[in-house]
């Protein structure tokens, strides 16, 4: 059931960011990673909404870490990609590149 869920563009980006950050994946770095790489600004709420959705679909798992003073005594929520998430990501990427195959000259010519 979970494997047939579609992956939205933003979900795709967030999932890759979690994968990329590995052990250090929690709210602040995930948002920074996306912001510096894509150049688009995202809100805290939007990010958590997406992460919650990804968790509900079984693509990521999360756990709470220790609370730290620089976070005003609040704890971090760490994320890690699950194997189902990895499979979904791979399938998404393959589907996209299959669709894009051979179209490179057209989009570069158009720009």
């Amino acid at each position, binding site marked *: 059931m979970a494997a047939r869920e579609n992956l939205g563009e933003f979900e795709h980006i967030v999932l890759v960011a979690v994968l990329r950050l590995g052990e250090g994946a*929690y*709210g*602040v770095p995930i*948002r920074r990673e996306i912001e510096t790489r894509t150049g688009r600004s995202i*809100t*805290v*709420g*939007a990010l*958590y*909404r997406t992460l*919650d*959705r990804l*968790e*509900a679909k079984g693509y990521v798992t999360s756990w*709470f870490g220790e*609370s730290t003073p*620089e*976070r*005003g005594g*609040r*704890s*971090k*929520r760490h994320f890690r990609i699950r194997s189902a998430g990895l499979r979904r990501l791979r399938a998404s990427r393959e589907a996209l590149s299959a669709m894009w195959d051979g179209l490179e000259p057209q989009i570069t010519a158009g720009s």
Partner: protein
Amino acid sequence: MSTLVRWLLCLGRLVASEEALGDLYEELASGGRGKWWLCRNLLSTIGTRRAQAATGERRPEMMSNIVQDVRYSLRTLRRNPGFAVAAIAPIALGIGINTGIFSLLDAVALQPLPSPKASDLVSVYQQFRGVRERRINGARSMFSTPEYERYRDGTLTLSGVLAYSDSQKVTLGGDSPREIEGVLVTCNYFDVLQRRPVIGTGFTSANCGVPGAPPAVIVSQALWSQALSADQSLVGQTVMLNGQAVTVVGVAPEGFDGIDITKAAFFAPLAMQGVLKRGADYLDPYSSWLTIIGRRKAGASLAAVRAELAVIAQQIDQQQPGRTTVLTVSPARSLSLPEARRDLFSAATIVLAAFAFVLLIACANVANLLLARAAGRSREIAVRLSVGAGRRRLVQQLMTESLIIALIGGAAGSILAWWSFQTLLNAIIGSLPGTIPALRIDAHPNLTVLSFAVALTTATGLLFGLAPALQASRLDLQTLLNRDSAGAGRRTAGWLRGALVGLQTAICMVLLITAGLLLRALYVAQTVDPGFDYRHVAVVAFDLRGPGYDQHRATAFRQALSDRLGSLPGVETVAQASRIPLSLGRTQTMFRLPGSEQWNEIDINTISPGYFPLIGIPIVRGRSFTPADLTGSAHTVIITEATARRYWPSQDPVGQTIVMAQDQHASISMEIVGVAHDAQLSQIAHTPTSYMYLPAGASSQTGLSLLIRSATDFSALASAVRGVARQLAPGLVVRVHRLEENVTLWRTIAAVVAGLSGSLSLLALGLASIGVYGVVAYVVSRRRREVVIRLVLGAKIRDVESMILRQTLRPVAIGVAIGIAGAAAAARILDSILFGVSPFDPIAFVGAPLFLLAVAAMASLLPTRQALTGDAMSALRAE
């Protein structure tokens, strides 16, 4: 970290999850993020708090819950048509009349101007202090011509600024002269409003220069088709306005009657002011007579316009030492004049409050109905609670039901209101006396009225639904499921019911006492003797500026007319007066007693010597005016008895002198030669205490009307008068009416107000007695078992009855007491339309409460009787 940020983070706990708040904190601590960023991100976290639960299941469930609730409510309403009607009808009535009244207010005052992109139009008014010389030809908050020019030339935020005058009455000459109303406008009037004349070019720069420019006029399509026979070749030809030839340069677009509350039949350049009103000059710097409307440039906000115009106002202030001006710049509406808005809104507040009271009674009724029904459903509710329905969910379902009742009622009421109030408004406008100019009122339903209806409906649903819903869901499950439903005595519900009945009674009491006062006032207005003899007197009024008469010709004409009318068959006497008794409006001046610095306001009426015998007011001391007083050198006055008592309490006023203000600098000494009997001269049932008569000398000829006492039939007399006037002055419009109509007008006002308030209070009474009846019926039915046992044990029916009555009438009595206090506070507002009845009139204040108590007693006795006369044994068995 600033305090504000700390507070925001604290508040964040309400919406944001632990990890999100931690992230926000970390970002802020690392710097580079402002409080706006924090606000935006905090807002974005709303709804993530219980994110895990919300995703996947919860939201769809909420939607399906709502759909389910709506279906369930509609089903229950269909199943209980009696309940549905009892709940929906009062709400429909309440919302209907409120929406109707609001739609009238909206039509009169809140409509945008008839112009494309009307939201860009702003109206400008001013309040100023420290200005000594000022003439008011309209309203004080209007502008003088040079002031208008300063704003027009100085603004950069407005793309165009127009100005127009108050409505002007002029005589349109021709075969059958008639009086028409129009406005004086700046030449850019049609450009700024973006309504081009449909025929003709409109004003050209030649029409718009200095006074003396070739007179030109644009006529409305209504005037063009009615009086000018829709003549296509009219443009370029001349019409006669107040005896002057004026070129028609255009016909206004279809349905465009100007932008003021009165319909304009013509539009003339400001420069024509001297032509239309001979002898008056408003173009000077001292006359307040222009309303300013500007069109905002794209991108210029209202605040920017305000700021910019305020700077110009300051520049004007600087050139007139001592002056301070405050501008009112607001989106232009059909009624923008601050003075008029203030009057209208304070009157509308009273009316709307009265109507809202009725809606409140209706709400209390429905709330009571819901309470009773919830009690009947308490077992069902208890079962649902015990099998795991959340209280929230239950309240949500009960509230859905209330909102649906409100919605159906609101929709039905609004449709009814739009239909009936439009008819009503047309009837009112149609029945206005001819002396009141045609009004530009559009009462079509629009978005403002719709929003009002929707808001009122929602508020109503919440108001009557919330308390019963909370009440119903707060159940003691244990007791309820174990014992029978009737036994579950819920004291708070009983208290709530009592409070609702008390509230209804209190409101009803206020409305009933008010209606009682107004009915008393109506009786007074119908029966009072005004103190003068108004029967068989005709009033002849005309405006001698219409045919363009000067002072000399006016005097000659009036003398000739008086002589000719006096010799008509059946005419007994003819007299002149500047103010006709009981006509609307008044003329006032200031006077002081010699040796006193205190100036007093006084009403004046300029009359000819024949006035007193004609109108039947005797002179009680001194003498009447003689022809010698009319020469203008005698300086004599006659005062009324009440005036004499007020200013010369224990002296003989005859022979005393007063000092009367001529204008701002000069004053003149006048001698009192007589005292006239009191009469109700400016308002019915009200004797003025500051009123005097001046002799109609040669210098006061322009504003006089004629009074004719005649034994002949009025219509024959009227046509004879018109015939004589036509011979003497062919271009003059003459209005003839009975003096009795002035008295009738006041009686009609009293009758309309009393009728409206009477029917409103009867409606309230009806709703309130249904409320009392319902509550008592419910309480009695719940206590049936107890009552039957009492009867079986030998209690007398009468005793049981009075016991129940005592208990049920307690909240009614408390409500009556509160209502009397409320009415005493409210009655003072009505003073001006009570026609001399005291606002604490004992008949109203004793009669109305007794009446209400009697009705309430009946409403509670009926269900008690019904319950007690049934077969006692069968009732007992049923329990």
